């Protein structure tokens, strides 16, 4: 007897599934609706619909929180961190997947082992390193840190991808006169595009969402990222909760957009890492 086909089984199953659906969706919907209320409406009843949609809240959000600066910083930092990360990991993955040399496997294993490191434990060394380099409170500090932290996962993904690219193409290219670096730039890199996009998407999202090291390594509002900016909203917006909620909604939009366009890459990247073990 299939218990899931009985009325009782089906009910329990759907209560279960809908519960998690509600938890995932309802708070976000509530936040969205509340961001369009006036302060008076907000204070009177949390579960009401806004009488009129206060788009002014969103304009206030941008002005009070300086969303444009926060946004720009996050875009710049996440983009450059991703590019740097992809460059150095693809170079290393190229060499490790193609050439045989002393310590090749050990180097590869050590790099991938970095995935298990609790980065949060490195607050003191990272702070010291960035200060010594004179990069405290700069965007560069985060670009370097984010690029570095994502090395293990990007290297793992890109290497796995490159290994499956047949060597015959490069052998043919070498016969035609390709140099070592040209094999990388003209043959392997273009063929690795899918792996690069996957690794790049994960690195970008991670960098965009990162909070702890943005908090630790920067202080002025000029280089503040969106995530760090959100943490200041309570003091900036004081009692204007609806506008603050509007700012939070705005901060969420880029992540959702990236998901809409890259969800297959995101999921394949995450499953590749975990399923391999």
């Amino acid at each position, binding site marked *: 007897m299939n*218990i*899931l086909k009985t009325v009782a089984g089906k009910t329990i199953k*759907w209560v*279960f*599934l809908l519960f998690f*659906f509600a938890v*995932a969706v*309802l*708070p976000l919907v*509530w*936040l969205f609706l*509340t961001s369009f209320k006036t302060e008076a409406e907000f*204070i009177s*009843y*949390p*579960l009401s619909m806004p009488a009129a949609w206060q788009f002014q809240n969103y304009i206030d959000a941008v002005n009070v929180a300086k969303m444009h600066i926060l946004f720009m910083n996050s875009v710049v930092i996440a983009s450059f961190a991703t590019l740097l990360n992809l*460059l150095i990991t693809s*170079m*290393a993955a190229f*060499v490790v997947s193609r050439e*045989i*040399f*002393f*310590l090749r496997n050990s180097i590869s294993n050590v*790099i991938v082992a*970095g995935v*298990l*490191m*609790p980065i*949060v*434990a*490195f*607050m*003191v*060394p990272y*702070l*010291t*390193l960035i200060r010594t380099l004179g990069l405290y409170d700069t965007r560069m500090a985060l670009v370097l840190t984010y690029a*570095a932290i994502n*090395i293990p996962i990007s290297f793992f993904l890109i290497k796995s991808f490159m290994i499956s690219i047949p060597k015959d193409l490069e052998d043919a290219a070498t016969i035609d006169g390709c140099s070592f*670096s040209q094999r990388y730039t003209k043959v392997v890199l273009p063929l690795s595009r899918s792996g690069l996009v996957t690794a790049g998407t994960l690195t970008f999202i991670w960098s965009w*969402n990162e*909070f*702890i090291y943005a*908090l*630790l390594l920067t202080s002025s509002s000029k280089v503040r990222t969106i995530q760090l900016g*959100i*943490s200041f*909203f309570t003091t900036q917006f004081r009692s204007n*909760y609806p506008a603050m909620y509007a700012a939070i909604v705005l*901060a*969420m939009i880029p*992540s*959702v957009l*990236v998901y809409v366009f890259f*969800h297959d890459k995101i999921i394949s990247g*995450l*499953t590749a890492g*975990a399923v391999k*073990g």
Partner: protein
Amino acid sequence: MATRNRNWKWIIIFLLPIAAMYIAFFIYPFIFVFISSLMKWNGISPMEFVGFGNYAKMFGATTFQISVRNNLIWAASLGFLQVGLATIVAFLLARRPRFWKGLRTVYFVPKVISGVAIAMLWKAVYNAEYGALNAVLSLITGQEWSLNWLGEFHTALAAIIAQEVLYIGYFMIIILAGVMSIPTSYYEAAEIDGASVWQQETLITLPVVWGIVVTAMTLAMAYGLRHFEATFLMTGGGPGHSTSTLALMMYDKIGARKLGEASTLGTILVVVGFLVIVTLNNTLGRKSLTGEDQ
């Protein structure tokens, strides 16, 4: 040496950037955090060697003990509760009920939004006067709910944990991918033989995806031991120090210019994290379809 490969010059050039970054951000910190844990240091004046004095101080401190307790609660909550729920949902979705693709997407969306935004969202939900939770409870029970979920000793920790445990999307997707790789013919055969759903899931699905589930549990526990963001944003460790975690304590120590003690906490984090991963992999291990150790 490497000169056996005639491209060795290029190999070194291509490995230099990653080596530099990896040494700077993984190897050096790993060593430095341990060495500085043995020091008394404010970040500016020279370090002063104190041996294991910081460790003794930490183990005796109440905040430390509370933080460790909380981290263990986090690790267990994420590792067992969150992954457990994710596994059940994955098993249910793998049978492709109606709308399963939509549900899968919806479950995952909150995971793409930053932890910071989610924490602020739930801070709003938990708000005593204007929050959605109290409003919904008032509606359902007919009584006036005005509980300060994040400010009361007996609810704060559970409230923060809830907003993370209930978002099962990440692990659910990974386990789902594993479950859906099992050929449906196995289940059809089992059904013909009269196996119940429970038997099918525990005797077919579970053994096959067990490795993935253990990986998920290990990852989740590792996250639990490192927890920082949501607590920092929602309670700052309070009320009192009741929701504090090791990472939060570490951050506070840095603010208090006690970098040596901060490193001590960092080293403890690394060691404990390592122990958890090794223990989990050894005890639960990975068993293939036939039940052998892999």
